[in-house]
């Protein structure tokens, strides 16, 4: 089990001391997180790390999960896609299923703690059970362009919360309650992000037969059209005209995404005549992803649409020069020409990659700045601090609060 003091070598003693000071102010509060799944997905992953740390700091924090069958989660999956702006067929029956299952959870779940922290839309209707305690709704989804029908349905619940939290300014919508901006984070001590030895990295390269005799450009992402793997291949081809290099496309296909295999096969077809393109459809393995990122010379994230873009955060943390599309939360992480290069097109991305490959010192500087930017803004310790401040904000309404 990772302890709070284990982060001292990463962020410094003073940062941990501040966390301990803030936690003192929450000693008399009980907090309950509620989401829809105990494992799998980003929300469960971050809660599984934050909840034990909050408890270690003395902030009594619980985590509960709602119940819901196949039909309920099919509906909430549709909601999820619709909030992302995807066109979904959602009918009256879907809303009825949602309300029906929500009522069952409302009748069964105890929500008497001082602060109830609801994650994403699935448990949103529990707000009906609000008494005189404080409730927060945390939206982990890009809600910048939501389907109006679904959003208006959810809004009826959201407005009864004390506060809402979004991951990027563009994800928020006009609401009559306080809204806070809290970015997601990565855990520097997890297998995905911890330091690796040369031997560990080489073992993974050997396993997949990746040679390091020329620069390696990598995109780590699911085989999903929104991640634009075909565009990445075009970028590589343009770069290859001037600089000999290798491209690695590594990721997985989600079981609930039938399009994933289709995109993967399309990528294979496009790349079958080029030995310098490596396509890996991998099983989930954090340590291997870590090694592939660390072995790369440049990390690409040429997404067409992106949530926060934690793969970018991971790459920046490894001090890699990153070339990424200016979409979603990526602009919060990369300041163009300071901590990476932002692009809008295949040509733009190819030019940026060539710039870095021809000027390794420049790439190094971008990487170093990127790592420090992540250290200051996107590590789990910052997330922990902001969640505690969020809890305090429910009791302090001013812009400057002496606590």
């Amino acid at each position, binding site marked *: 089990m990772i302890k709070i003091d284990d982060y001292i070598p990463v962020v*410094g*003693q*003073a*940062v941990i*001391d*501040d966390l301990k*000071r*803030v936690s003192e*102010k929450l000693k008399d509060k009980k907090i309950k997180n509620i989401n829809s799944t105990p494992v799998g997905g980003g929300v469960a992953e971050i809660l599984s790390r934050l909840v034990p740390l909050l408890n270690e700091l003395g902030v009594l924090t619980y985590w509960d999960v709602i119940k819901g069958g196949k039909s309920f989660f099919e509906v909430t999956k549709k909601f999820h896609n619709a909030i992302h702006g995807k066109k979904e067929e959602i009918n009256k029956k879907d809303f009825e299923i949602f309300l029906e299952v929500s009522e069952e959870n409302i009748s069964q779940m105890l929500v008497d703690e001082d602060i109830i922290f609801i994650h994403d839309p699935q448990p949103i209707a529990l707000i009906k059970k609000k008494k005189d305690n404080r409730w927060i709704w945390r939206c982990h989804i890009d809600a*910048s362009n939501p389907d109006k029908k679904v959003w208006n349905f959810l809004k009826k619940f959201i407005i009864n919360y004390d506060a809402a939290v*979004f991951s990027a*300014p*563009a994800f*928020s919508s*006009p*609401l009559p309650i*306080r*809204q*806070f*901006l*809290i970015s997601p984070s990565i855990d520097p001590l997890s297998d995905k992000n911890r330091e690796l030895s040369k031997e560990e990295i080489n073992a993974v390269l050997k396993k997949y037969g990746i040679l390091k005799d020329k620069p390696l450009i990598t995109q780590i992402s699911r085989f999903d059209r929104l991640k634009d793997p075909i565009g990445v291949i075009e970028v590589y081809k343009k770069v290859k005209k001037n600089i000999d290099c290798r491209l690695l496309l590594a990721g997985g296909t989600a079981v609930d995404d039938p399009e994933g295999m289709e995109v993967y096969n399309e990528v294979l077809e496009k790349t079958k005549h080029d030995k310098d393109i490596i396509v890996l459809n991998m099983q989930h393995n954090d340590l291997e992803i870590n090694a592939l990122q660390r072995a790369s010379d440049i990390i690409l994230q040429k997404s067409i649409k992106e949530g926060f873009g934690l793969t970018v955060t991971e790459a920046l943390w490894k001090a890699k020069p990153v070339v990424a599309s200016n*979409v979603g939360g990526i602009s919060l992480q990369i*300041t*163009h020409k*300071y*901590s990476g290069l932002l692009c809008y097109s295949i040509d733009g991305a190819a030019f940026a990659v060539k710039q870095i490959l021809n000027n390794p010192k420049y790439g190094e500087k971008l990487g170093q*700045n990127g790592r*420090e*930017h992540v250290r*200051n*803004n996107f590590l789990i310790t910052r997330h922990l*601090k*902001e969640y505690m*401040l*969020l809890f*305090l*904000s429910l009791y*302090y309404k*001013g*812009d*400057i*609060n*002496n*606590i």
Partner: protein
Amino acid sequence: MNEFSANSSFRFYTRLHLSELTGYKAFTLKELLKILNKISGSSIYYHTHRYLQQHQYLSPEPPNDFAYWVKEGLGEDKLAERLASIDTIQFTSIRELRNVIINTIHKYIKENPQSKKRKANLGQEFHFIKSVSFVLYTGYEVFNLKEFCEVLSKITVDSIYYHIFESRLRLERGKNDFSNWFENSLFEKNLAEEIERLDPYTHTMEELRNTIIKIIKKRIKDDQN
């Protein structure tokens, strides 16, 4: 008690902040101006000081979000330069700073009427955010310059930030807290002035910490000689 001992002690506080979304956003200079006129001072403060906090190890430019957005979102490089070169250190209240930003944009629009037509693409708009601060005592109390230096070298940049920027501009104390204490409790007027003369906006937070420590150590050494 030596000559650097204080009549009263210095207590180090820290300031932790949370970003609150205001719901206001601008696509054009005209919209930006309209919101700048009515938005809370905490939002002006956030957008003129965010870089100092978030980019602690970088060269500290561009110094404010308005300059950055005008350049990257609207392509108005000349206005961006004017906004970037606003000398924040000369202001002792958010109100004054707000007026200068507004006047700079106003003047530019007057000189370049076509700039009113520029519109940021969807997704590139300016979102107004405000800073919600939580101020806590760090538990460090010092009585002389030596102790001050020791604590300054180990506290977080948030604490330095609070005593140098927030106290001076947002809490309108006129001077940074360090200089106030040097002058009024240690009777170290020259040292106070030397620290006050530093333009903290042209340093990263770590550079600022090291510079202040260096100045104080030199003062201690000079006195010993």
